């Protein structure tokens, strides 16, 4: 039986990849992809602890978390489309003001 530390270690590695991508990439699509990586590592933790404690609550909340990630991705891509329509770029370094 695989110890639960390996699942958490994998989740930590995926979270770090997402964090690194979120800190370094400036393209909006890539930042959204990194956010998805971080959310999925949290889901992996939820499912791992749910399995190893024989309690289904974590898996139910992983489902809710996946649905919230879908909401976040939809809103994020809509915002990216709006700002691309405004400035013809999605490089988020060129959006440093909050009003136009």
């Amino acid at each position: 039986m695989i110890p639960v530390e390996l699942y958490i270690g994998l989740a930590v590695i995926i979270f770090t990849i997402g964090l690194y991508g979120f800190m370094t990439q400036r393209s909006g699509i890539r930042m959204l992809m990194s956010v998805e990586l971080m959310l999925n590592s949290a889901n992996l933790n939820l499912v791992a602890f749910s399995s190893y404690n024989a309690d289904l609550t974590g898996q139910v909340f992983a489902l809710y978390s996946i649905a919230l990630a879908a909401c976040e991705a939809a809103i994020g891509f809509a915002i990216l489309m709006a700002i691309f329509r405004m400035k013809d770029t999605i490089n988020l370094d060129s959006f440093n003001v909050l009003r136009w």
Partner: protein
Amino acid sequence: MMNNEITINPMKILTSVYNFFRPRILGMTVAFLFLAVLMVSVFFTSWPAVDQIPQNLDDPSNIQGIGVMIFTDFVVPFEILSIILLSSLMGAIYMAKGDGSQ
């Protein structure tokens, strides 16, 4: 005939490596420190876990249990999630639609 042998210039390789890592070194340092802290705190903690995953050999999936829990214990987050999905869908369509110029 062209003499296009490949010359290995170590200074050029070092320069290209430096130019690759130069804008990324701060992010890599922070990410590596974060990874180190989390790895130490993961592998030096005794996690509460059962020794053996209970297996139901007749039905190894737990989809039925998840569905029962969604509609009994967690029905309030389920309804809230439906409203959140609807509102985010409406907001996304409103933002992606534009101002009606096209």
